[in-house]
């Protein structure tokens, strides 16, 4: 298939996934910000949301202060922020239109419908309630698109490229949450916070829709090091780094099988997966959680770049 088509499919999936992630962050932040300050601690949750979205620099070029109004506008509706929810859907739809014939009717309907609906929200919500509805709608739109792809696409390279987009983006998103919040997830002995951090931990789990899963996996109250374990090493957790890499390797292998050629993307991705499989949480803490995550983010970016070189350019 044409490299440009593959590139469009890959980014289409990435942008839809990113939009959903932004909606989750905003939802979790909204919730956290509504907890009385003495309980939640004195941190600025809105600033941390911007950091988690990975666009701190761009944000502070435009705004002086991170608060509900400015962050909501920037992350959800700003046409000037290339990674706002609106921009994500716009770019996703432009990509979709450019590769119409590579999409199934269901996928096109999903993304085109989302884009049409987006216009109804105009330049932002008129109330908190409406904004909440908007955030739910964003997540539903992503579910619809992802489900359409999953259920209707032919299992060929087109499909594998969309999957790669989803999982690379998802891995990046989960890693960014960990990167911003790592100080809350350190083992008990090193932990400087108090029990009040519970709200923070729950918020992290919520932002990756894993609060319920957590209880099923550990059958314990929320412990920060277990949160880290769940998001990094638990393969059965759909947004964990381990799960994302399991999927990235699988899809890259299918591609290599179909094209009859392995490449650097396959080798590197297998390397990352192996490292995740062979790691234990206490070792990661020992070597430094922050360093581990930073390294992961760098590797993930490198693999994205190599996939582009190998297939999409």
């Amino acid at each position, binding site marked *: 298939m044409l490299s440009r088509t593959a590139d469009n499919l890959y980014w289409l999936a990435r942008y839809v996934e990113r939009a959903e992630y932004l909606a989750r962050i905003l939802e979790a932040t909204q919730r956290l910000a509504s907890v009385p300050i003495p309980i939640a601690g004195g941190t600025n949750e809105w600033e941390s949301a911007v950091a988690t979205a990975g666009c701190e620099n761009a944000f502070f070029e435009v705004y002086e202060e991170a608060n509900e109004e400015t962050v909501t506008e920037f992350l959800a509706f700003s046409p000037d922020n290339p990674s706002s929810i609106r921009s994500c859907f716009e770019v996703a739809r432009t990509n979709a239109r450019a590769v119409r014939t590579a999409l199934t009717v269901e996928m096109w309907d999903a993304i085109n419908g989302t884009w049409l609906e987006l216009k109804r929200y105009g330049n932002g919500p008129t109330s908190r309630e409406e904004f909440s509805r908007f955030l739910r709608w964003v997540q539903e739109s992503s579910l619809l698109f992802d489900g359409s792809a999953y259920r209707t696409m032919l299992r060929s390279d087109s499909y594998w490229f969309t999957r790669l987009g989803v999982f690379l983006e998802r891995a990046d998103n989960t890693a960014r949450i960990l990167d911003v919040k790592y100080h809350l997830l350190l083992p008990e002995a090193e932990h400087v916070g108090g029990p009040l951090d519970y709200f923070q931990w729950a918020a992290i789990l919520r932002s990756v829709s894993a609060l319920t899963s957590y209880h099923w996996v550990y059958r314990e109250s929320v412990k920060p090091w277990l949160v880290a374990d769940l998001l990094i090493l638990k393969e059965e957790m759909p947004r964990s780094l381990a799960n994302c890499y399991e999927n990235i390797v699988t899809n890259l292998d299918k591609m290599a099988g179909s*094209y009859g050629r392995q490449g650097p993307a396959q080798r590197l991705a297998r390397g990352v997966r192996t490292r995740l499989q062979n790691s234990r949480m206490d070792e990661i803490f020992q070597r430094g959680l922050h360093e581990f995550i930073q390294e992961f983010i760098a590797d993930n970016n490198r693999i994205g770049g190599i996939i582009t070189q190998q297939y999409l350019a």
Partner: protein
Amino acid sequence: MPAFDEMTGTEGSVRPAYTELSGWLGEVPPDVLDYRRREAEVLFRRIGITFAVYGEADSTERLIPFDVIPRILAGSEWRLLKRGLEQRVKAINLYIKDVYGRRDILRAGIVPEDLVFQNPVFRPEMNGQKVPHDVYVHIAGVDIVRVDADTFYVLEDNARTPSGVSYMLENREIMLRLFPELFSRHRIAPVDNYPDELLATLRSVAPDSSTSEPNVVLLTPGVYNSAYYEHSFLADKLGIELVEGRDLFIKDEIVYMRTTQGPKRVDVIYRRLDDDFIDPLAFRPDSALGVPGLMSSYQAGNVTLANAVGTGIADDKAVYSYMPEIVKFFLGEEPILKNVPTWRCREEEHLAYVLDNLEQLVVKEVHGSGGYGMLIGPSADKATISEFRAKLKAAPKNFIAQPTLALSTCPTCVESGIAPRHVDLRPFVLSGRDEVRIVPGGLTRVAMKQGSLVVNSSQGGGTKDTWVLDD
């Protein structure tokens, strides 16, 4: 005198081809027709057939109105048209080959030299250039109008990148879905083999150096082009890649496309991009849509472009008026399809006549298209006419004039019910190495406004399904 009506002629009695349709229109309750009409619109929106109109803000995706009442041609009428179209397109191909080759027709003084050499669509790069299998115009769209029961005129030849064929195909699909009972009452020649015929045509003209499975691609200017929908539609139906300029590159005068499995050679490019834009090294240097070096590969004979470069020299409105002579010169036959009588304002006597009769004439710019930049005398006000008079006097060579034709009408659904509206017809003629292929029918365009003669979609025209009866 009222115009000739496709259904009722001039006498008012129903013509044989329309017997069943007329009966059906009498039976079907108006609300059913109206309901189906709305259903058709929903279907079109869902499929995503949209059309961009240049110069209108925020209208990059607009629907062309579709009329559910078909336009019907009897088998005998179609057979006549078909012979005429084959003849005309054969002559056009021979003429272009001659213009860029021996130039017999210029030496014989039949077409004036300056009309060719000073024409902006003439491409000196093509002088002496051989094209694969001598085919220049692989896909032609010939606009035909009818003025009475026996007279069809060619209004315009489109020999560059004619569009509209996706509407011909989709209109039929939608009609089959909405009015199965109407189809069961007729024997209608199918059109859905057009993509197969097009692909066969394109493969037949691959360069000799290509493999037995030539790689054919469709080159589009991209999603912002007004006909992008059609490009993606056709690529999908043909099962070929829809490429943009940046997907292609040239190495050692061979064209490749960038794929996920590395470079792949391209043999035939069905390009929906004007000459000006295909290669920034050869033509407009500011074009970001083309492929640098494409012309060199083309000139080396390593790739076929469909249509060839420089075919504009055949469909220019100034050249149009010479078409009957061109047919006679190359084929030694009388043209089967007539031209609309045309005054060439470049000739003094003609200009004088045109200036004296502006109120009755249609005046067109020779290089214009799409219904832009024309004067329709009978419906223009005084100011517009005097403005045009000045333009004409300043540069008479740029204009031709034709009588206002009473284009035939066809029953059409409008606000007030069913009323006659003016129509034309654009059949698509495919020329390959082996044969000329024409799918029976074409695109019928209809002027939705009462009395209007402008059928162009850029000016609010609509379309109809076109039926050729298998009688």
